[in-house]
């Protein structure tokens, strides 16, 4: 295990070209340090990035909000810019881990760690956020819905790093929103089920809906099939058994020490129903 501290982003990107091996970026360290301590991460290089100020901070550019990868959750909670444009995103993040961890944990880290229970990702999914991936030679944007490929797997190449998270300024405009993180207590809890939802209603018809879940599959994901079925229907037109049926095809809840698959499934169904009825 080698510990590397690049002097700036340019230096970092150059190092990434040369270092082809397994590596982890250390920012807030709230997950990584635990994994190192428990021996889950052993022979990889650890690249420290929390001192790179270019990767941190919240800014606006035309119609978008840019959040640096190493911006802490607390910084997002404190940001006036976020408050102005993305109040639902900000409000929902209050249930992120605990105040202590919010001070340290970073948005980029929550994405890169890619836990099925990650608190930020369901929100970014319904907000249609993009992840900016940078390497020495290029910079590309990937929709968060396309970012994950499997359990803790993603599309990042060995020479890339997450530099920004990009959210449209109008992402929440005219939407009714929903967010519920279900854990064994109010704070400092790992989610058993998370549902993030955004919908637009015209008349009594749901003209647009986005639903994203956490802790119900290998990585947090959008419920596209359920969304397709609901879109353009009125509440009375929705056959809820059909919703349950489709949901069963999109999520794969498990039983573990923390919770049961039946519980996770039923709670997800209940929350979707509650959101639709809101």
């Amino acid at each position, binding site marked *: 295990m080698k510990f590397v501290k690049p002097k700036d982003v340019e230096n970092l990107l150059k190092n990434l070209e040369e270092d082809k091996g397994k590596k982890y970026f250390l920012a807030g360290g709230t997950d990584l340090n635990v994994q190192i301590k428990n021996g889950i991460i052993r022979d990889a290089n650890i690249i420290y990035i929390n001192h790179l100020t270019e990767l941190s901070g919240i800014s606006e550019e035309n119609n978008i909000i840019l959040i640096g990868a190493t911006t802490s959750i607390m910084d997002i909670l404190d940001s006036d810019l976020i408050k102005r444009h993305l109040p639902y995103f900000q409000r929902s993040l209050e249930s992120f881990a*605990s105040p202590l961890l919010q001070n340290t944990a970073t948005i980029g880290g929550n994405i890169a760690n890619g836990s099925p229970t990650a608190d930020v990702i369901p929100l970014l999914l319904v907000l249609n956020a993009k992840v900016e991936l940078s390497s020495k030679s290029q910079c590309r944007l990937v929709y968060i819905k396309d970012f994950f490929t499997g359990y803790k797997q993603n599309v990042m190449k060995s020479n890339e790093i997450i530099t920004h998270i990009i959210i449209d300024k109008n992402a929440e405009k005219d939407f009714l929103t929903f967010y*519920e993180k*279900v854990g*064994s*207590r*109010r*704070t*400092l*809890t*790992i989610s058993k*089920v998370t549902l993030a939802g955004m919908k637009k209603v015209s008349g009594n018809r749901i003209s647009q809906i986005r639903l994203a879940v956490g802790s119900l599959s290998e990585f947090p994901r959008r419920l596209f099939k359920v969304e397709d079925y609901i879109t353009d229907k009125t509440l009375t037109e929705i056959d809820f058994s059909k919703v349950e049926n489709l949901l069963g095809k999109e999520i794969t809840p498990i*039983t*573990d*020490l*923390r*919770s*049961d698959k*039946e*519980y996770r499934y*039923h*709670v997800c169904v*209940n*929350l979707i129903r*509650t959101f639709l009825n809101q």
Partner: protein
Amino acid sequence: MKQVRKFDARPKLDGSWKFLDDYSYKDMIYGGLFYSTVHHGIIRKITFPVEFNLTEFTIVFAKDIPGKNIVPEPECDQPFMADKEVFHFGQVIMGVAHPSKEILKKFIKQIKVEYEELPAIVDVKECLENEKNAFGKEIIIDHRRNVKPEKGWIRTHSVYYTTHQEQAYLEPQGMIAIYKPEDRIMFVRGTMQCPFFVKDGVEAIMGNTIKEAIIETSEGIGGAFGGKEDFPSLLAGITALLAYKSGKPVKVVLDRADDIQITTKRHPSRVEIETYTNPKTRKIRKLKIDYRLDAGAYQTLSPVVLARGVLHSIGGYAVEDVYIRGRLFRSNTPSNGAFRGFGAPQAFFAIESHIDKIASHMKINPYEFRKANILKFGDEFPTTQKITENHLYDCLERVIVKSDYHKKLKEFSKFNKTLKDKKGIGISIGYHGGGYTGSGEKLLNSEVKITIDKEGFVNIFVANVDMGQGAHTTLAQMVNETLEHPLEKTIVQLPNTKKTPNSGPTVASRTIYIIGNLLRKLSKKIKDELKFENLERFIKENQDKFPKEYRMHFTPDPSAVFDDKTYQGVAYKDYSWAACVTEIYYHADIYQIELKKIWNVLDIGNIVNPKIAEGQVEGANIQAMGYALSEFFYKKGYGRIQGFTDYAIPTTFDIPEIDIEFIHTDSTTAKGLGEIPMDYPAPAIRNAFYNATGIFIDEIPLTPERILKTMNKLPQTNTDDTQT
């Protein structure tokens, strides 16, 4: 009664107060424990990793023990270290020490043991359902009075379960041992509740190789809750052996993961209750209880937990015909041990749940039903001990008024008719016998000492520790208020088995009740003897009389006799009484109970320090809330919890509104308080859930998963129940 700030509050905040890991000694090395990772098996082969230089390590096995390989306990059946066979996961096989903490950790991690695995019982229900697992000895309280159930009487029969609970003290277990060969003294400093138990433990393992073990606590003890009652004896024993063999001071501080996995927990229970109730008089006429505890692999102090459990199992009710049977069961899990409440929380969960069930069968209000059966002056416990006051009844009446119980009951019933989410309100009552059970205090024969020096300092010497509960501040107050001496000149000395007399362990809600009242008595004697107006002035004017030392033994009330064989007589001289109401909000979407408010009304006699007393109630209520709602230590098929990640103790954000009122505070006796507020809240929460949903769940914790499972098994229940 005086509001005095805890004297350790400031140094704990500024960091100057020393906890065990803050102590260091010259040439000190670090020790660790290597323990079994199978539940039951015979040790076939131990292999040490080759890349280490074995000569740098000090290693001790069972065979290296010069004294006895048995930890002194009420039941002496647990070895310090396993020899050939391990009986539970986490059983210590060897102690290891090395000058480097990091090398020690790596080395222990890589030690390999081959076991021949044997059948093991790890599941709580598998242990408690099978009577073949019983340890043999049992406790019977026989108060049968030949009552024959009549036609029309209501029979109610149920089995109630509770699970393990982790003490979750802030500071993990730790010991430092220093051997002084010149005078053959083994000095041990540690985080513990019972210095004299630890002394017995160290002297047992070291045998004749040492002349004496001297035990001193660290300055600060970061919580215990019973978890530092008996495990420290085992840890101190092995640490002492490492110090003896290495010739160097050895420090062992358990890593949190190890601490959680190998130390004692609250006993899981199975309590079966059968009652016959006369619906006309609303009186329970006949009651039978089968009280079982999962003791773990060894009995250790479990017989004492069992004793308190059965003695509290009838709850606060007067029943003519009673038969109680208590047994300990064996499993292949670490021995369960002391935890705030000590058998009583299990007992009250069962009986208080059962009372609501009978009330429901009889279609009457649970408060009315309690009122009809509650212990009153002239009634007796199944031990034939007479009730001499109506204080339990007073607590119940007061809490019903304070909580606006009747009004809420109506409001919630209306709310619940129209909405998916539900509101509920529940009651429980309880009590806790102060001090050791039965003849225990007589046998302990506790002694306290006070010295007064020329400079005007009053020094208090007791073996009871301040583990954060504020005991030393309260004890100092009990002395300084009697002597009318400045508090800053009244000092409680650090417990040390050579310097402080044996005033017994810091357990059983006895520190203020037994030791505090004894110190008051001694202070009164000092005052009467010296006949001073002002002690400080008296010392200045009579310097030749000082320093002076006073001692006093605890003298039990000769009229309070208990027969430890027949369980007849006075089990506890004084009881603290309490009643509680809880209000919950049930979130239907996520099957989750939220505790909104809890009202406590307690009679603990005279209050010494109101803030500290309230703190005890608040802390215990929150611990009980975790016990009732979220904390579980084991899940079938998924094993035992390995750390705090999945062990959900409530955090600040979860804490409900807590209302506390003490009544009958004009008493001259300060009674026990440490445990009672842990004893009763869990069933009140469970009863509130029934009130909200019409569903009885007879097992805690009431996790959302358990609630969903129960609902799925039920036919559609009518929540418009008959309680009015």
